[in-house]
């Protein structure tokens, strides 16, 4: 269809028109500006797929090779674009296969609308073929879910779904639609949802609390900021940068907040948390005011709560009231959208530099560089390190790439060492820690932002958890760059076994297939690198490639990721070796 027809279709939503429930679903998606959809057909969703065929020039459907891939691809799409990702599946196993992606989106606040087909309503509850209670199953991992049993409910429910998914603290919504509702007819009229009674997505910023926060910050001798993904979701990157620069506050990030401020910014002091940087972790227990912005004090960030920042006054900027005082008591809580709150805060802040305090972070960085970073990025030993691969990617992509990382040692290395010039450049599974995330998420990310270089960093374990999505990459011709850091181990578990389980490597060693041949089977070209002298050229070739590219780097088998805060220990007990 041409642009005019598309415009007409969108205008049509203003007046009533008789159509099937399936067609109405497609019209709702078009009205919500959905032009790409990830999914997998099956019996209970076939009427919708049949309609999709008719609208195939307006909505591009990406056939993933597994529904989990569809959910993760939709997540990747959402995370890089800030738009709602959409995934679709059939009933029963199709729906349950989405669950891991939905749970991941829930904990990482990613806006997703998942549409599942369901058996006809007269068969509900009869253990019919491919029937599961997906509403029951998805309830704990969705922001909202709803089952539609009548065609007439479709427009209102889908409008609500998109509104809820993207407003306030975003999250996944699942809409289950029975097959008879898909076949049934309705008088279609679409009105976007602009509010739901009983749901206040964004609490209004309270100016008194902003003033109280500003007073604490202005009086602080050793203030420290820890920001999270709330800054990216609230599009408050510029405001955060202004706060940091005006008040001269050293600022660290959680894994989900990575890339909101460029890595090279002089006041960016690195990552907090279990494998974060030495300085920000150690000095969390020395700062006098801790300013948390759009982050939720995850246990991977805080370590033991009994010893976390006890000496500091805590200011918490947060959109979700349930997060305030959940893990860490906030002396001042500023509820609201991060952008709105920071805009109010900026004029109240005094200009400051805190140079001596900042120097303390630099001093600790120097120690970390000497003991950890130097050997990670510029190793002298024989085996290749994950860090030097990341370093090479930074050089070749000039820090402009979006890095989609899987879960494990390579993820920590990718987050620690990637250079991020632009926001929304770190796409990873933070809260759920889902192995198998990166390959499909990279597909969604590249399709949402084709102008960006998208590099997936994956371990040999996680790669094989959703390896089938190589088929999607091949069929869709998505030019993602895939880097598998192969240490023939489930590296992170092995590291824990080494440190805490007397080196009993129970079921963590992997005998891997020939990945290059597998990639070749999907018509994806690439290289295997086993020697340091081959690395730079291979990465260069990968970045220069206009097509998808598979790079396998055989890295040191038993390397560990340091620094590390042992599970349940205090942030100040961070170990360098």
């Amino acid at each position, binding site marked *: 269809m041409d642009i005019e027809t598309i415009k007409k279709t969108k205008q049509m939503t203003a007046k009533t028109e008789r159509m099937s429930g399936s067609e109405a679903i497609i019209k709702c998606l078009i009205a919500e500006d959905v032009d790409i959809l990830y999914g997998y057909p099956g019996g209970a969703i076939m009427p919708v797929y049949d309609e999709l065929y008719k609208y195939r020039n307006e909505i591009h459907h990406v056939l993933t090779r597994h529904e989990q891939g569809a959910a993760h691809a939709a997540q990747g799409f959402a995370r890089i674009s800030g738009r709602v990702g959409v995934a679709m599946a059939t009933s029963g196993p199709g729906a349950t296969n989405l669950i891991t992606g939905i749970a991941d989106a829930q904990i990482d606040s990613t806006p997703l609308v998942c549409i599942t087909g369901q058996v006809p309503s007269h068969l509900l509850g009869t253990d019919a073929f491919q029937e599961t209670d997906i*509403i*029951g199953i998805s309830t704990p991992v969705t922001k909202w879910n709803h089952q539609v049993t009548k065609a007439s409910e479709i427009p209102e429910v889908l409008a609500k779904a998109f509104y809820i998914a993207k407003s306030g603290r975003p999250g996944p919504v699942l809409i289950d639609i029975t097959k008879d509702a898909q076949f049934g007819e309705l008088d279609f009229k679409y009105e976007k949802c602009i509010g739901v*009674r009983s*749901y*206040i997505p964004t609490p209004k910023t309270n100016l008194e609390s902003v003033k109280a926060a500003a007073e604490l910050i202005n009086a602080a001798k050793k203030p420290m900021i820890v920001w999270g993904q709330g800054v990216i979701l609230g599009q408050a990157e510029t405001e955060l940068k202004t706060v940091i620069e005006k008040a001269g506050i050293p600022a660290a990030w959680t894994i989900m907040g990575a890339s909101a401020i460029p890595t090279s910014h002089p006041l960016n002091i690195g990552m907090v948390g279990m494998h974060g940087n030495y300085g920000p972790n150690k000095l969390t227990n020395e700062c006098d005011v801790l300013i948390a912005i759009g982050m939720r004090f995850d246990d991977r960030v805080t370590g033991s709560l009994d010893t976390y920042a006890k000496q500091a006054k805590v200011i918490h900027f947060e959109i979700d009231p*349930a997060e305030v005082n959940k893990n860490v008591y906030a002396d001042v809580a500023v509820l609201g959208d991060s952008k709105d709150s920071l805009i109010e805060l900026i004029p109240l802040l005094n200009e400051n530099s805190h140079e001596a305090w900042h120097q303390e972070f630099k001093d600790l960085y120097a120690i970390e560089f000497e003991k950890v970073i130097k050997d990670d990025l510029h190793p002298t030993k024989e085996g290749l390190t994950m860090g030097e691969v990341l370093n090479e990617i930074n050089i070749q992509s000039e820090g402009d790439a979006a890095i989609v990382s899987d879960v494990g040692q390579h993820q920590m290395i990718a987050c620690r060492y990637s250079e991020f010039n632009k926001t929304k450049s770190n796409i990873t599974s933070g809260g759920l820690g889902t192995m198998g995330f990166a390959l499909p998420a990279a597909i969604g990310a590249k399709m949402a932002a084709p102008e960006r270089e998208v590099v997936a960093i994956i371990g040999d374990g996680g790669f094989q958890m959703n390896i089938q999505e190589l088929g999607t990459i091949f069929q869709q011709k998505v030019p993602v760059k895939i880097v598998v850091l192969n240490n023939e181990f489930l590296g992170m578990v092995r590291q824990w076994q080494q440190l805490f389980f007397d080196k009993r490597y129970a079921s963590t060693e992997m005998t891997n297939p020939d990945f290059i041949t597998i990639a070749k089977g999907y018509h994806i070209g690439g290289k295997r690198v086993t020697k340091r002298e081959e690395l730079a050229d291979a990465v260069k070739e990968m970045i220069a490639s206009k097509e998808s590219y598979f790079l396998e780097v055989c890295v040191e088998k038993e390397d560990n990721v340091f620094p590390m805060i042992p599970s349940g220990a205090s942030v100040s007990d961070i170990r360098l070796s």
Partner: protein
Amino acid sequence: MNQEIKTFTISIYTENNIGLLNRISAIFQRRHINIESLTTSKSEIEGVNRFVIVVNITEPQAKKIIGQFQKQIEVIRAYYHTDEETIFQESGMFKIKSDLLFNEPQIQNIIKESNARIVTVNKEFFVLEKSGRRNEIESLHRDLNIFGIMQFVRSGRISVTKEEMKITEMLLAFNNQ
């Protein structure tokens, strides 16, 4: 904050939607909080349901789960209250053989003294209903058990607060947003 375990009555005003009970019970389940009793019914406001849930938890726990309830899209407002802040009742029903009513004079005294109400009487059985505090119903149960109870059932707690809830005003504010 007080870490002592106390009885709290949680009131949740919600939209009347299928599936919400699941969401609410899941919040307790995840935190391993045992529900002592749960009652759900319509509230004073048309189209708005009210859950009354009794749990034994600490006050910080109560605060945190209230936050989790309010986060649910279809929850209008959630509160927690101590016993002192509410007026609450339960109701029990007892089915007893009719012979006993006529042959055991003591039963008639028990009914009278307990202020229980006879709901129905027929040849085979009669049904007593008693509303009040849990201990009053339990005491009646003990007294009647001596003679034999054919069936017994007790409701969950129903409760109103001594203080105003201001839900109607809140709903008006939602509507005006």
